[in-house]
């Protein structure tokens, strides 16, 4: 099996981040997508970002991934500033984005090939395929896979680099309800196995409560962190338990209230 490696995980510190984008209709003006965001994630922690669409969750994740550059502020992983994308920060999108021209095995190998370490780490490929239950699909092409299978390949492809942080951008958003719940358990199993730091963007409140150590609630225009909620329930969590539903009610009420407040202030 893949060895547990807590030492490899890193904390993330997001410090006073601002990011704006040009408005398509008026090129000279810009819209503030993220306004002064600060938070931090401990090494090995699983944190969710929850909020309505358009609140900047995905933008924030792209910044942490290094795919975009913030206007101001500082992003630190471990004790290194983020200056660009790196194999240390894996990213899984809602669309699995598997390379359609590569078989399942070659997709999973991508990170090893890109870093030029395929030769030494070839044995891990099989391990990761087993980890996500896809050994028998090694030579299948992505268009043969179901949505859940494709997303498992995407997870394995990100995990094979042993990232210090795994960024998940609504990774289960396109799956049906049953596959989704099963995949939540699978992601949790991977996380408990490897203790990688995870930052999960989701708009599914149940998913956030079921999975995370802590939930950050974001509100839009400009995106900012409105509230932090510690989910101090033991795992595996009961989706219908009293305290689960209490958290749910709390978050829903908060988002509803936040929506009203935003409406009133404009």
């Amino acid at each position, binding site marked *: 099996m893949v060895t547990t490696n807590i030492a490899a995980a890193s904390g993330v510190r997001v410090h006073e981040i601002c990011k704006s984008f040009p408005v398509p209709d008026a090129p000279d003006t810009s819209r503030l997508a993220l306004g002064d965001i600060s938070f931090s994630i401990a090494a090995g922690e699983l944190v969710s970002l929850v909020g309505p669409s358009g609140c900047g969750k995905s933008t924030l994740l792209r910044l942490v991934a290094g795919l975009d550059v913030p206007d101001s502020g500082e992003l630190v992983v471990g004790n290194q500033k983020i200056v660009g994308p790196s194999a240390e920060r894996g990213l899984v*999108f809602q669309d699995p984005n598997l390379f359609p021209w590569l078989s399942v095995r070659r997709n999973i190998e991508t990170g090893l090939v*890109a870093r030029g370490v395929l030769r030494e780490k070839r044995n891990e490929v099989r391990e990761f395929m087993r980890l996500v239950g896809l050994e028998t699909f090694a030579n299948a092409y992505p268009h043969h896979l179901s949505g859940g299978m494709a997303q498992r390949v995407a997870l394995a492809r990100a995990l094979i680099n042993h990232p210090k942080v795994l960024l998940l951008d609504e990774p289960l958003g396109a799956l049906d309800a049953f596959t989704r719940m099963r995949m939540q358990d699978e992601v949790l199993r991977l996380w408990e196995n490897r203790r990688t730091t995870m930052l999960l963007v989701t708009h599914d409140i149940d998913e956030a409560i079921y999975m995370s150590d802590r939930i950050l609630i974001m509100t839009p225009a400009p995106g900012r962190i409105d509230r932090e909620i510690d989910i101090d329930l033991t795992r595996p969590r009961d989706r219908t338990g009293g305290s689960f539903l209490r958290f749910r009610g709390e978050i829903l009420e908060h988002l509803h209230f936040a929506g009203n407040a935003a409406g009133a202030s404009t």
Partner: protein
Amino acid sequence: MNANGAITNERSRLPWPMQLAVPAASLITFGTHLLIAQNAPPLETRSYMLLFWEIVGVSIVLAIAQKFWPVLRRWMRHMWPIFTAAILLLGVWDVITVGLHLLPLPYFPGPAAVLRSLISDRGLLLDSTWHSLVLLVSGYTLGVIVGLVSGVCIGWSSSVRYWGMPLLKVVGPIPATAWIPIAMVVSPSAIMSSAGLIALAVWFPVTMLTASGVSNTRASYLDVARTLGAGHLYLIFRVAIPAAIPNIFIGLFMGLGASFLTLVVAESVGVKSGLGWYVSWAQGWAEYGKVFAALIIMAAFFSTVMTLLFKLRDRVLVWQKGIIKW
């Protein structure tokens, strides 16, 4: 498998009419020829007869072999109607030209005369085909290589695109054959200039389609690769180019069509060999049987090359089978 056993049973036989269609059509066509071409040269009739004897012989052998070979049976089921129609069409051609004299001689000889030309001039035809093949392959290969390189550069780098795209848009649409006068002056030999012209004809569509394929690579593929530790070379060669391959093949097909055209024109104008030269040479001697013979060779030659490219595409694009069809 067992559920549609009845269907398999039905398919395990080739119906008698279909088995007999090809020999029957051959007999009809040749019988017609005997009736209408009584004062044709005996050599023509003899070779025409041999052709049909061969067709009849082969079709009988295949009709026996298909009983034991399902793949052959499926192929015959698919192809036999077409073959039958083609043979009957030969008869129609014979009737129109030799029988009714509807088309003026010597410009439209009958099929037996064309076959005779094909056989009697086979040495020169083979030699011409070989020269055309060499010229086509060298010009096409050169054009594809240069086109792929320039296409990837234009598609990937925005500064190359800025300077290269206007050149491509202005020079590319000029038909390669329009350069013939200049190519003849510039190049040391007619062969070289022809190869260059074919390369030019191929270069434009291959560059255009490669560039658009590369520059339209889904941004999220590039993002994923970057978060997996990919550098520039990986992004170009392992993400952008594979993503562009369906497009690149469209360019290769367009380029192939353009290269056939340019080949034939260049050969009939400059080079003193090849099928294009053969056609205009035979025309000069008013030997239209040879012209038609060369056209038949060209049809077989070009469609074989085209088929090979299709096969290559199917092999390379196995990952997207069923997604894109054209």
